[in-house]
C-alpha cells in the first residue's frame, strides 16, 4: 500500500466521521452538545481540506499514482 492510497483512505474515513458529527449535531437534544458537535465538524472540514490539497500535490509530483 502506497502512502498515497493510505492518505486517501484516511481522508475518506475523516469525511465519514465529519458526516456523523454533523448528524449528531442535528439529533442532539442538548444545546451545548449540539454546539460541540458543530464546532468539531467544522474543524474536521479544515483538516479534510488540507489533506485534499496534499493529495493533489502528491498526484502532481507522482502522476503514476493518480486514480489509485
Amino acid at each position, binding site marked *: 500500500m502506497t502512502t498515497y492510497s*493510505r492518505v486517501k483512505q*484516511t481522508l475518506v474515513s*475523516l469525511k*465519514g466521521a465529519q458526516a456523523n458529527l454533523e448528524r*449528531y449535531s442535528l439529533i442532539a*437534544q442538548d444545546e451545548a452538545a449540539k454546539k*460541540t458537535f458543530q464546532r468539531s465538524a467544522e*474543524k*474536521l472540514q479544515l483538516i479534510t481540506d*488540507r489533506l485534499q490539497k496534499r493529495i493533489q500535490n502528491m498526484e502532481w509530483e507522482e502522476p503514476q499514482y493518480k486514480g489509485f
Partner: protein
Amino acid sequence: MPSWLEIIIRSLSFIVVVIFLTRMLGRKMAARMTYFDLIYGIVIGMIAAAISIKLVDVLSGVIALLTWSLVGIGLSYLSLKSKGVRDLIHGREAVVIKHGKIMEDQLKKMRFSPEDLLQQLRHKQIFNLADVEFAVMESNGEINALLKSNRQPITPKLLGIQTAVETGAQTVILDGNIIDEPLTTMGLNRGWLRTELEKIGVSPENIFLAQVDAMGELYIDLFDDSIQVPKPTAKQLLLNTLKQAKADLDAYSLDTDHPRAKQMYEQCARELSSVIYDVKHLLK
C-alpha cells in the same frame, strides 16, 4: 331492620364517605406525614369507625366527621398560604448536628434520644458520627444528614470529568405498538424508527419495549429474549475512527520527507486530537 344489616350498611356508606374525604384532604398526607397529619388521620378513622359500629348516632357522627374534615381542608389551604400557620401546625425543621457537633438542646426539645438519632443516621447508612457535618430533623421526624466533604461519594464534578447531559430516554415502542408522541418530542418520526429497526433487522411487532436516548440511539427489548440484538455502537465507532485517523496522521508526519507536508500533518494531528478531546465525553 336487624342490627347486623344496619352495621353493614353504615360501614359500606362510610367507607365511601372516607374515600371521598381522604381524596379531598389531599395527597400530601401520605407523602410527608407529620405528627399532626397522623393524628388527624386517626381521628377521622375513629369517627368513621364509631359511626359504623353504632357507638354514636349517624347525625352527630356525620357532623363531627364533616367538621373535622372541613377544618382539615381549611388548615391545609391556610398552611399553603402562610408560613406561620405551617410552622404552627407541622412544626419546623430543626438543626440537630452543626459543624459536626450534636445540638443537645434541640434534641431535647424534639424529645429525641441520642439512640434515636444514631438509629436514624444508621438508617441512612451513616455508622460513624464523625462523618456527619450537618444534620436536620425534618418536621416529620426524619433525619437528613450532609456528610463531611471528604466522606461524600465521588461525583464526576469532583474528578473534573465532563459528562454528556442525560435527558431522559423516551419510550417509543411499548408492547409492539409505536407511540407517536415521544417520537415527535424528540423531533423524530415513524419513518426514522422504521429505518433504524430495518438496520437492526427486527419488525416493531416483535419489540416489547424500545427507547431512544438524547443522542438518537435506539435500545430495544424483544419479546423473545433468546434473540441477540446488536448493541448500538455507532458512537464508539465514530470515536475509534477519529482516533485511528489521528494515529495515521502522526505516522504520515514521520514518514514524509517533505518539510511542508510534515508540518501540515502535524498540525492536522494536533487539531484532530483537540476534536477528540472535545467530543470524547459525548461519545461514551
